[in-house]
């Protein structure tokens, strides 16, 4: 025990004596470790965000879109563009399916809007949707004040609006918004309801939205030809059946031949998890590659510096041997030095990587969450590289002849 402690103290002592050199040597290791931690933190952050996004869909709900939610790798943008739009009629056709309870057909503007009253305006960050009463169920909205959009609102094309908690906060701080007027692109809508706060996930608010009846939306803001369709199954257990029915129905109404692939995308908790796992795997593989390379470079750096250290300290090694250090003891001294050096590099890398991830999160609101295992893996692989690449220099040190070693300058 004393021996190990002594060896570590010795190692730290010699590293302190060569701070600059140690730091330069460790660059590779630092880069490797920080890459792992930063990439894994971002991946983990996205995973948490997606999970929570789709949790908001509610049990037994899934979504149909023309565009894939996440695109990665080489993909053909035009392939998706060429797909026919998802129309209102196609959405309505889903209502008759036996295991479908609600169908929310949604028109989303391409860009977020700024909402305003006479006194105040929000930032241009509010997603405005033209929707149906089913929106409420399909998106897990709870109404805090007032009511949601009704069938009559839709039929009559009433200019009414249900707002998320962020809109309430900004436009009506401490006021009752019901019956008040909110302008979207200058068109006035009457507030009929306020949604319960859903909170924010990893820095991104879930309350920056508003819904108006689709009829009013098209009249006031223009028609969005492509719709998103959210479907809720009769019960959560029926969701797989509902999904099959929806796919079959859509293929029929969109006139697909049996051999053609689906020209629409379905997102449920399961498919999104799958999609994300694929993405995470690719990110993981890329990270692993970068890391392995950085560790290799770093490891060679460590080996080089340890060889230099052995040469510089030949006399010291001779003295230690003359005074009774066994060869093994010299070996372990240099191995521990190499491991401590690399692990320190790993530690710096972990801190740097965590800093990068959290910085990206703070500046660009990129979701980030630092997984403990990434920290452990980084430190362990850095230390492992130190061990592996320290073997040769340490073996060299332990094989020196004491008399010869003491004669060197």
């Amino acid at each position: 025990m004393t021996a190990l402690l002594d060896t570590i103290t010795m190692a730290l002592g010699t590293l302190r004596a060569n701070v600059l050199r140690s730091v330069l040597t460790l660059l590779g290791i630092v880069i490797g470790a920080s890459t792992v931690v930063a990439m894994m933190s971002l991946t983990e952050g996205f995973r948490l965000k997606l999970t929570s996004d789709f949790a908001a869909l509610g049990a037994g709900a899934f979504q149909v879109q023309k565009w894939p939610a996440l695109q990665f790798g080489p993909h053909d943008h035009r392939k998706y563009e060429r797909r026919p739009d998802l129309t209102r009629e196609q959405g309505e056709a889903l209502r008759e399916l036996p295991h479908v309870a609600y169908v929310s057909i949604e028109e989303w503007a391409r860009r977020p809007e700024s909402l305003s009253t006479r006194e105040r305006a929000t930032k241009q960050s509010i997603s405005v949707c033209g929707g149906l009463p089913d929106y409420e169920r399909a998106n897990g909205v709870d109404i805090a004040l007032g009511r949601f959009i009704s069938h009559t609102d839709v039929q009559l094309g009433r200019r009414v609006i249900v707002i998320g908690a962020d809109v309430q906060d900004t436009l009506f701080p401490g006021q009752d918004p019901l019956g008040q007027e909110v302008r979207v692109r200058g068109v006035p809508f009457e507030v009929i309801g306020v949604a319960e706060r859903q909170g924010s996930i990893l820095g991104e608010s879930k309350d920056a939205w508003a819904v108006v009846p689709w009829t009013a939306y098209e009249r006031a803001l223009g028609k969005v030809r492509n719709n998103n369709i959210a479907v809720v199954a009769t019960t959560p257990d029926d969701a797989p059946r509902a999904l099959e029915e929806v796919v079959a129905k859509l293929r029929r109404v969109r006139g697909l031949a049996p051999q053609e692939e689906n020209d629409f995308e379905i997102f449920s908790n399961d498919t999104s998890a799958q999609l994300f796992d694929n993405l995470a795997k690719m990110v993981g593989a890329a990270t692993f590659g970068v890391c392995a390379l950085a560790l290799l470079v770093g490891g060679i750096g460590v080996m080089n510096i340890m060889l230099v250290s052995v040469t510089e300290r030949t006399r010291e090694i001779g003295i230690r041997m003359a005074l009774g250090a066994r060869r093994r003891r010299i070996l372990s001294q240099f191995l521990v030095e190499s491991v401590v050096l690399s692990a320190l590099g790993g530690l710096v890398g972990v801190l740097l990587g965590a800093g990068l991830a959290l910085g990206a999160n703070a500046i660009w609101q990129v979701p980030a969450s630092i997984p403990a295992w990434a920290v452990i893996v980084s430190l362990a692989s850095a230390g492992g590289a130190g061990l592996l690449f320290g073997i040769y220099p340490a073996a060299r040190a332990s094989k020196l002849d004491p008399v010869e070693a003491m004669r060197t300058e």
Partner: protein
Amino acid sequence: MDDALILVEDLCRHYVVGGETVRALDGVSFAIERGEWVAIIGQSGSGKSTLMNLIGCLDTPTSGSYRLNGADVQGLADDALADLRNKEIGFVFQTFQLLPRATALANVELPLVYRGMSRRERRARAEAALAAVGLTNRMHHRPNELSGGQRQRVAIARALVGEPSLLLADEPTGNLDTATGEEIIRLFDDLHRRGHTIVLVTHEPRLAARCPRAIRLTDGRVVGDGPGAEVATLGAARAVHG
């Protein structure tokens, strides 16, 4: 003679340098009993340090045999030799051989580190050893912050700290003024009285004369072996006493 601590017979140590053989030691034989104090005297290059390295189990002879405490040193494994050097032998090297980056205290502690002694105990012992050579107020200095004589005293403290049964000192007073040198010799005298075996290399006849026994080397051969006072004044005499 079987109970001799050191028994060397026809010991040779040759170096081959650029195709030429340097006979640093060329057939050396003698025995040193436990508790003896022996001076090795000879001119520069006569092979004194080479002999010390062999006796100290640091080097292996080209030929001949060396028995330490009855055991054939050539038959011992590396680890056994390291342990032997650590526990039984105290070295004062001609060139001090202090660790440049370590303080005097850390240098003196070093043999105890390899003995696996607890931090507290080895610190206490190292402090005591440094006090014995009069360096209490220089314990936290590094070798390059010490004078030559002070470095030599650190080296002596390091050799003594483990209370070795065999002390090998290569010119231990070479860098010291007469008064300090005298103190060191008194320290050795004290050790000798307490039963330690001491082999002291010196080129000073005056010092060798004070040792109970001296061995004179010339060109790697023993040319004199007897009471210190006699051998010291022998000059380059040929007579070999048994």
